[in-house]
């Protein structure tokens, strides 16, 4: 593991990513208590550009709300949507992939047809439909993103399990009397973890992008301040107040970039062999 971190740290991009992400996490965790301005409160005249009004470093939006407050509160939501939806996607994808890969045969066939089926539907369109059905609350946004993003997990885990299950130590475990559940959880999955971690870090990034795209089309939770919402709301005033689109856009870009850099660093560190699988 130590060696892994050394390899990770050698990757300059990954370190930059780690610094940015840490910053975002700190903002998300400590920002709201330290900067308690309600991001929905209309505090000043609309469309104040950044750096022009005291107390409002990033200016105000179309309703005179504090952009900095939005950015800080939005960090929390974007990260949460990204993380939670990834966790949920893993909770679906890992068991599906593990069962398919381990048992093979008709189990594999059935699960993989199921997965393929979800992969064939354009995922973004599926997310839209799901939100149209469930109504865009934070809960359903996370669920929808998870539902469209688990198939790659299942495929990756299946591939890993498929190759791991023919390893001799798995055969040894069979001979030593362990049952399938023990073998999957003790012998197989721990060895797939590094690939899953890499994929997960990239999925968090993708989920943040997906959330912002949905918000852009007006499918965000209207009660929760998120970066995606800020862009969606500001795009109508792109021409007159470009910074309202620009600032949260940069926030998303940096966070997603950081996650991707970290993912790449993790990939190099954890499984150099699998350099191209994480996509």
């Amino acid at each position, binding site marked *: 593991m130590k060696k892994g971190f050394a390899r990770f740290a050698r990757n300059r991009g990954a370190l930059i990513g780690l610094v940015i992400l840490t910053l975002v996490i700190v903002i998300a965790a400590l920002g709201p208590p330290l900067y308690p301005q309600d991001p929905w409160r209309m505090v000043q005249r609309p469309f104040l550009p950044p750096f022009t009004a005291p107390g409002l470093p990033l200016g105000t939006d179309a309703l005179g709300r504090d952009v900095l407050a939005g950015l800080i509160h939005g960090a929390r939501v974007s990260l949460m949507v990204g993380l939670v939806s990834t966790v949920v996607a893993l909770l679906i994808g890992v068991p599906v992939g593990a069962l398919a890969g381990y048992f093979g045969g008709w189990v594999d066939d059935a699960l993989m047809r199921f997965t393929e089926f979800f992969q064939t539907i354009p995922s973004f369109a599926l997310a839209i439909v799901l939100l149209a059905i469930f109504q865009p609350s934070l809960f359903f946004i996370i669920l929808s993103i998870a539902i469209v993003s688990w198939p790659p997990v299942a495929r990756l885990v299946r591939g890993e399990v498929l190759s791991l299950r023919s*390893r*001799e*130590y798995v*055969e*040894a*475990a*069979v*001979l*030593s*009397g*362990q*049952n399938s559940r*023990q073998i999957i959880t*003790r*012998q197989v999955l*721990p*060895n797939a973890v590094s690939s899953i971690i890499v994929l997960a870090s990239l999925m968090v990034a993708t989920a943040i992008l997906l959330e912002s795209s949905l918000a852009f089309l007006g499918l965000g939770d209207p009660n929760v301040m998120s970066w995606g919402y800020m862009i969606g709301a500001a795009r109508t005033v792109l021409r007159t107040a470009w910074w309202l689109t620009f600032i949260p856009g940069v926030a998303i870009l940096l966070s997603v970039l950081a996650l991707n850099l970290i993912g790449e660093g993790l990939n190099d560190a954890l499984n150099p062999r699998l350099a191209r699988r994480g996509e």
Partner: protein
Amino acid sequence: MTILQIRNLSIALPKGADRPHAVEDVSLELAAGEILCIVGESGSGKSMSANALMGLLPEGVRPVKGSITYQGRDLLQADEGDLRALRGRDIGMIFQEPLSALNPLMRIGAQIAEVFEAHRLLTPVARQSRALELLHEVGLPDPKKAIRAYPFQLSGGQRQRVMIAMALALEPKVLIADEPTTALDVTTQAQILKLIEDLRRKRNMAVIFITHDFGVVADIADRVIVMQHGRIVEEGPARDVLLHARHPYTQKLIAAIPGPGGEAKDDKQGAPAILRVRGLNKIYKTGGGLFSSPRVVHAVNDMTFDLHTGETIGIVGESGSGKSTAGRCLVRLVAPDSGRVEMAGVDMASLSGADLRANRRRIQMIFQDPYSSLNPRSTIGRILTEGPVSYGTPRAEALARARELLELVGLDASAVTRYPHEFSGGQRQRVGIARALALQPDIIIADEAVSALDVSIQAQVLDLLADLKRQLNLSMLFITHDLRVAAQVCDRIIVMKQGRVVEMGSADTVLTAPEHDYTRALLEAIPGRDYERALKDATGVPACQS
């Protein structure tokens, strides 16, 4: 006439490697028409020196000292363009794994024609006809078909022939052969060795032949260089080095060559049969779907034998003979299609669920690959206790037993807290053996258990197995492709070919008076048989006893 000379060559490894130099202070000379064998175990630097000759060192590895003189020029000082002109035309090279050494997406003909193209020789049409001649010359059965084929359509031996054809296309003065037969079956190996030998004669070509196998050396070499840890430890004419090795390392290597003899083989036929196999069959169907018929492989075809208590049976065969599938059928890692596997009156082949689990602990396996047979995320302690614990042994008791087992297989008991990657290949294989023993089985199936090990380690592990077997009164099925290994450890030998048992009998009989042509061919193909005889004459003892 010396055509190639290496002087004081040192090759540096990148930072962080386990030693600073891959090759240190190596000097050698190569005369026209001679075969020079470089022998050594893995990590000895034998391949590096050859690669340096071609200017094909891996990234980060570079020569730091010395010179390589070819036709009056120092190749280490030559620029890339000059080296390129040299490669293929003056020096050809073939590799260990012919499948991965050929571009999977190009036809054989095109890959050979490329050699001419690289040196701007011949017209495209002439290149093809020349390629055809070459394929003919290296003895491919149907050159016209082969030239249009893709690598995956040829067998391993055929691919290596293609590689040789390619390397010889421009009639180079030097051929570098880097373990060219290691990945091949023994009969194929014999053919390829003969081919290289013939070509050398015909063309008066010098060959640098890199190998770890003294049998091969004995069959082919004019001169031998033995390398250890990047240095040359011994050098001389083949006969001298092989029969009168001076350096202890060389002596150790030679002593480790497995072979028949050893302890007297008892006839254990009188003991009760602990395992009775009757009419075992396994058929694989691959591919196949709605629109295509599946490919059917009869991997195990009607296998029948008894294993007696305390007996070791060797199952011998080339790749694809079904020997490993047979072993896996017996422990039900693979479900046989039909047949009975009776162990103490219970038919393993028809058990399932808890019954299977309860009986399976009596028959355990030792695996081939020391790297993939231990879970890299588990401590040795856990690896050794998982089995007993899942059969109900309390963890503490299992752990105490694990410590004992480790000492039994020659490792320190403190290893329980360490992870597999902290051990060498041989040590790992010992852990694998300890694991098999942890469940106190009656029968051990060793599937190519020493094939991946260097020859000196191989000898140690074989000795360990022999000791354990005696101490614990185990019965053993020893699956191997190497007749010499089988000869050393087995009481009886089963020879398999394409799923069928072609011969079965006592080790002595099978090895000295085989009945079946195939067994005979296998025996013939073992490299260095003459040498072993000579060695026996010279030292008066069988190799493995010294």
